[in-house]
């Protein structure tokens, strides 16, 4: 189990500095790969459409996931509902590379997340703060992403969550060891992982940004805040020119420290996805509060 978990964390390390794109068809998957995505997330509907159409959002049809897997050589991920053990087993049986236990889908369990150690396939999970991130890692997540607020094209929540996690790590790093148990109690996180995070000054797994990233500048911003890569959901295929937007976000992520390049790739992209103001979303439609 330990060796498998290490291998799964290792795959996330290979994705660092890259962009993971939501795709709904084999054609979109090829566009993503051609643009330089490090992985694709196979979905039936992108988050913006899930938000618009409402209803219960479930795991995608395995047929769609298999078609996408067949189309590309880069890793393929797929989402399952929080706590939905059977959906996770189905996705694992499809032989793809990563599961996202995601708040973007309607949770199957409001109290318990999946025990990810029971699986061979790696999991990525969302988090809004350090305690949540360490709880998911405690359950076996091999990678973390900020939740942000998916399907809004509004980066403000991703920024909030990344800033929160990074700042909580900085605080932890400066605590004397005898204060770490109290910190673990206060954030509801496993003590061993709190100690490890304090010692390393970083999360024990790779940490990406997700939820509302819609432009090359958004991607660069998340990297500047300490993210190790980005997930872009609706931002690409809901923009006016997906090919160009996809390529621009890849370049902005790889060269986030180089404003000239980010400026250059931001030119003439056409319209980005139409964004949503978070305060105008009814509280029952906020996705990031799903899971705990």
């Amino acid at each position: 189990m330990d060796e498998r978990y290490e291998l799964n964390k290792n795959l996330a390390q290979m994705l660092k500095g890259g962009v993971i794109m939501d795709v709904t068809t084999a054609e979109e998957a090829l566009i993503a790969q051609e643009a330089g995505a490090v992985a694709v997330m196979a979905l039936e509907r992108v988050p913006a459409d899930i938000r618009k159409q409402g209803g219960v959002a479930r795991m995608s049809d395995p047929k769609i996931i298999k078609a996408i897997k067949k189309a590309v050589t880069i890793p393929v991920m797929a989402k399952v509902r929080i706590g939905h053990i059977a959906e996770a087993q189905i996705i694992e049986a499809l032989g793809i590379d990563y599961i996202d236990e995601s708040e973007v889908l309607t949770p199957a369990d409001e109290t318990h997340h999946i025990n990810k150690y029971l699986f061979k396939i790696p999991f990525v999970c969302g988090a809004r703060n350090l305690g949540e991130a360490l709880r998911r890692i405690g359950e076996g997540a091999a990678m973390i992403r900020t939740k942000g607020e998916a399907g809004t094209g509004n980066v403000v929540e991703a920024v909030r969550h990344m800033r929160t996690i990074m700042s909580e790590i900085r605080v932890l790093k400066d605590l004397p060891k005898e204060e770490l148990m109290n910190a673990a109690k206060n954030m509801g996180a496993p003590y061993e992982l709190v100690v490890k995070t304090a010692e390393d000054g970083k999360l024990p797994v790779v940490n990406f940004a997700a939820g509302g990233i819609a432009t090359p500048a958004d991607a660069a911003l998340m990297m500047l805040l300490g993210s190790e890569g980005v997930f872009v959901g609706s931002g690409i295929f809901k923009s006016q020119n997906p090919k160009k937007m996809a390529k621009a976000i890849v370049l902005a992520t790889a060269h986030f420290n180089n404003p000239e390049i980010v400026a250059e790739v931001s030119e003439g992209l056409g319209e980005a996805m139409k964004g949503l103001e978070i305060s105008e979303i009814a509280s029952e439609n906020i996705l990031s509060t799903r899971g705990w």
Partner: protein
Amino acid sequence: MASIGVLAYQGSVAEHMKMLSRIEGVSPREIRFPEDIGAVSGVILPGGESTTMGKLIKDYGLIDALKERITKSMPVWGTCAGMILLAKEITGEDITYLNVMDIAVRRNAYGGQLDSFTADCNIPEVSSHKIPLVFIRAPWVEKTWGNVKILARIDGRIIAVQQGNILATSFHPELTEDMSFHNYFAGMVKQADMQ
């Protein structure tokens, strides 16, 4: 001081930098642009996604600068994705990237993440002890030609090769604590510096 560059767009960059920083007489440096290449005497192409890195090296002209230095005998080492970037042939595909090493490589040869694995192997040229090997959605070398030397096989599959100044491994020494391959490559760079 031997200055060794790590292609720093994406993937296991920090891991390679950390390994290099532990070697005496080596100064590690991240490289992204053609002008960075002049300052180093060897380059590591890290693990990551080869399609992504293959595109990024083209965008700002690094590919030609790298190719020129490699053909003029600068030591280069590709791990996993880096091996794919070096190959003159990718099995079943029309594209190549740096196109400098006489090997045909099969992408994701072992399968997907569920097929990732670890092993260990004696590689006498590189170390006197068994080296731990980590394979992540790894390629293998399907065939070699020219003066390529096969350094290691696992279950009959070629997983480490060298052709003069060019070194390629299917696996990721940067994900282990074993310094053998990094020391070996640093030795190649130091020797090239002396000549």
